[in-house]
Structures are given as C-alpha cells and as structure tokens.
C-alpha cells in the first residue's frame, strides 16, 4: 500500500468519528499481497516505510471474495462486479485466511 493511501487511512481512523463502524474491504487477487495490506491496517505497515509504520489501527479487515461479504451483497450486484474473480480465487480459502487475520488483530 503506498504512502498516500496509508496517510489517508490514518487520517480517517483518527478523525472525529474515529474507528466506530469503520472497516476495510480489500480486492487484491494475490492473497499474499492482500495479507500485507491487511497487516498494514491492523498491526501497522510491515515494511516500516509509510505513515502506518508502528501504528496498529486494529481495523476489522475483509476481502470482497469472503463468503461473509458475498452474503451481504445483492446477488445481481455481486455477480456483475466481482463474479469472475470469485471463479479464479477460492473464496473459502480467502475467508479462512482473513478470519485468522481478524482474530489476530482482535487479540492485539
């Protein structure tokens, strides 16, 4: 995640409304890359290069391909916008990986 995005996310998490009801949804096709982005918004920038270095925001992070997200979106809208990627990447694997990330983040 580039420095500009990290700076903007930090600002949003620290604004008046804070982290209440604030979540992150990712769309990366590469799961390792998605996990790095997830780490950046939970425990801080793993590369220690951006504004979120050493800043554990602890935001709940999801991937758009997770079954939990899919169930929340009207089927027609989901298929039109995400459908193809759901055939390329195994949504169950994504769900399991991100569940672990959220559990780890919740433990601090």
């Amino acid at each position, binding site marked *: *995640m*580039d420095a500009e*995005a990290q700076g*903007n*996310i930090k600002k*949003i998490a620290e604004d008046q*409304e804070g982290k*209440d*009801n*604030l*979540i*992150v*949804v*990712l*769309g*990366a*096709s*590469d799961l390792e*890359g998605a996990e790095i*982005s997830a780490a950046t*918004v939970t425990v801080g920038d793993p590369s220690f290069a951006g504004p979120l270095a050493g800043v554990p925001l602890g*935001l709940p992070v999801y991937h*758009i*391909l997770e079954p*939990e*997200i899919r169930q*929340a*979106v*009207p089927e027609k*809208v*989901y298929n*039109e*916008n*995400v459908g193809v*990627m759901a055939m390329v990447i195994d949504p169950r694997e994504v769900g399991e990986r991100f569940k672990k990330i959220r559990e780890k983040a919740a433990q601090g």
Partner: protein
Amino acid sequence: MLKGKRVIVIGERDGVPGPAIANCVVAAGGQVVYLTTECFV
C-alpha cells in the same frame, strides 16, 4: 454486516478494482469513506 458501516475500499487493478467493490458496499447499505485502486505493475 456492511449495513451502516463506514468502509475503506482498497481495490486492485488486476483483482477487483475499487469502484466494483464500492458498488457492492453501497448495494449492501454501507458508506464508502475512502476508495483507492492499487496497481503493482
């Protein structure tokens, strides 16, 4: 689970782009507060 949430969308050009995720979030009742689409090329 997206209803009433403020959502930061981080899409990817070679995966699911930000605007496509945003369409899903809005349709599910969430509010997009930040949107970006990353590109690793």
